[in-house]
């Protein structure tokens, strides 16, 4: 079985802080990591590899620095790594991103494609389903568990707001995985050593040129554009009241009405 896991390098957004004076993002010193949901997806693939004969390829679209997460994936146990990198891909929204990644996937053979549910820098949860759409594959999102049944059938557990669903799907298919699905393994020392000797395949626009329309790549091919971005700004000190309980209640009630809570 061939499994392709799509992974993304993201800034660790929990470490980003707001400059309280300037109201801008402080990105210095914020480390880049493998997106948590993607890492859980890779772990899910590695667990299948332990049970069955599985070849795992990790695929990422991003700048050259993304090499770090490709090595990490090798050290965890991935067999092959492809980094899709070209200036033509830059500035892509989710539609153009999935279009590009799908074009690369068309060049590979797979039974199962795993993506994370969403990346912590964008939180859209759109690229996985949009890749499935581009490839005309069935998809199941919000996956927490998976069992291989006879033949090409998978039984998948999908998390919902108030419980879960058990679903059956035929491979080839695409699953988007939640970080709560498992606890990804650590890299082994040997794995880390070997990871540096392994080759990360570099794919550029030329590699996929025959199966894409150049006009639909990157910023140019993105239906959505960021018109402006802004921080909410540093917070000014609010109002402080030293009043009796009755009056305090009135002040709070008024605020609740203003904020449409009641």
């Amino acid at each position: 079985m061939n499994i392709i896991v799509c992974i993304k390098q993201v800034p660790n957004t929990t470490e980003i802080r707001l400059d309280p004076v300037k109201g801008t993002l402080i990105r210095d010193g914020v480390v880049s990591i493998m997106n948590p949901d993607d890492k859980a997806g890779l772990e899910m693939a590695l667990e299948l590899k332990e049970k069955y004969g599985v070849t795992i390829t990790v695929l990422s679209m991003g700048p050259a620095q993304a090499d770090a997460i490709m090595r990490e994936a090798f050290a965890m146990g991935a067999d092959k790594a492809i980094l899709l990198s070209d200036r033509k891909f830059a500035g892509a929204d989710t539609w153009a991103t999935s279009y590009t990644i799908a074009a690369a996937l068309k060049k590979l053979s797979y039974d199962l494609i795993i993506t994370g549910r969403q990346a912590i820098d964008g939180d859209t949860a759109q690229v996985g389903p949009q890749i499935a759409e581009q490839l005309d594959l069935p998809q199941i999102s919000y996956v927490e568990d998976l069992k291989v049944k006879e033949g090409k059938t998978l039984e998948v557990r999908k998390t919902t707001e108030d419980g879960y669903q058990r679903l059956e799907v035929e491979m080839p298919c695409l699953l988007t995985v939640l970080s709560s699905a498992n606890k990804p393994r650590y890299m082994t020392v040997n794995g880390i050593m070997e990871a540096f000797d392994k080759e990360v395949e570099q794919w550029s626009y030329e590699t996929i040129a025959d199966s894409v329309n150049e006009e639909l790549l990157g910023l140019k091919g993105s239906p959505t554009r960021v018109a402006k971005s802004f921080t909410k700004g540093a917070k000014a000190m609010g109002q402080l009241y030293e009043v009796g309980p009755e009056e305090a209640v009135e002040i709070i009630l008024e605020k609740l009405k203003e904020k449409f809570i009641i």
Partner: protein
Amino acid sequence: MNKEQYKGVYVFAEQRDGVIQNVAYELIGKARELADVLGEEVCAILAGHDSDKQAPELIAAGADRVLYLDYPELQDYLTEPYVQAITQVIQDRKPSIVLIGATTIGRDLGPRISGRIHTGLTADCTSLEIGEDGNLMMTRPAFGGNLMATILCKEHRPQMSTVRPGVMRQKERNYKRNGEVEKVKITFDKSKFKVRLIETVKAEKAKVDITEANVLVSGGRGVRNAEGFKKLQEFAKTINAQVSSSRAMVDAGIMAHDVQVGQTGKTVRPNLYFALGISGAIQHLAGMEESEYIIAINKDKFAPIFNSADLGIVGDVHKIIPLLTKKLARE
């Protein structure tokens, strides 16, 4: 593309077990505002099977028209049948805007539709407005909520966005509003149905996810004990909020770890955060300071929490909260 052809603000009226979800009414409320600015119609797309009983509610909530798709294939949500159905409606009717609730269903359905009809989709919008040029201005958080971005989809139609439950506000229902329920015919390509639902299991107790809450009532050391948290629970119930906790109360074994706010707990960004009897240690602030509005009550007027609060009240939680609950229950 001729954008002039595209008219109407459409809302996907998500139903589960035949019950239209609140987020659909919230989106209808927003759609009404947008449509009034544009001078266009609000249409609700209701997909299901024998589930049109609530269609008049959608009209009362602000829809001019309910497009009802009644098929056994649409009874329970599955990606492909729903994508086929909604895509056909969009291609046939050509709306200018499509709004979808950012639920586990909407976030599965939306991207697939936008992929199929080749248009943009903006996830988890917190604000939607019509710009001067008539385009939809979709504002959403990025970088884990550290940055807000306003996004446009100028050259493609429809402009699609998802919105999380609780972000927009329902309009008061007006049962005198006129509107039409129209049954819409579609066709399915069943050869593409490759996913089968074995069973849907409802968790006995819905998992409380404080990061999804619109309003959080959070208690700290000043709440003292389980008895104190009971008062918070009662208060939370009256305003449809969830209760969370500071680390002190989790370490003391009074509250569970999954409701802990802070660096070692969860980062939350509700629209309204009550910090009750919480002093405001840095590790706690790190988990909640991005909340839209913060109300703090603390006995100590020098408590650091007041520096982060929009509204601070120096006082006793044990006196103020029960009184507040009583007043709210009366209203």
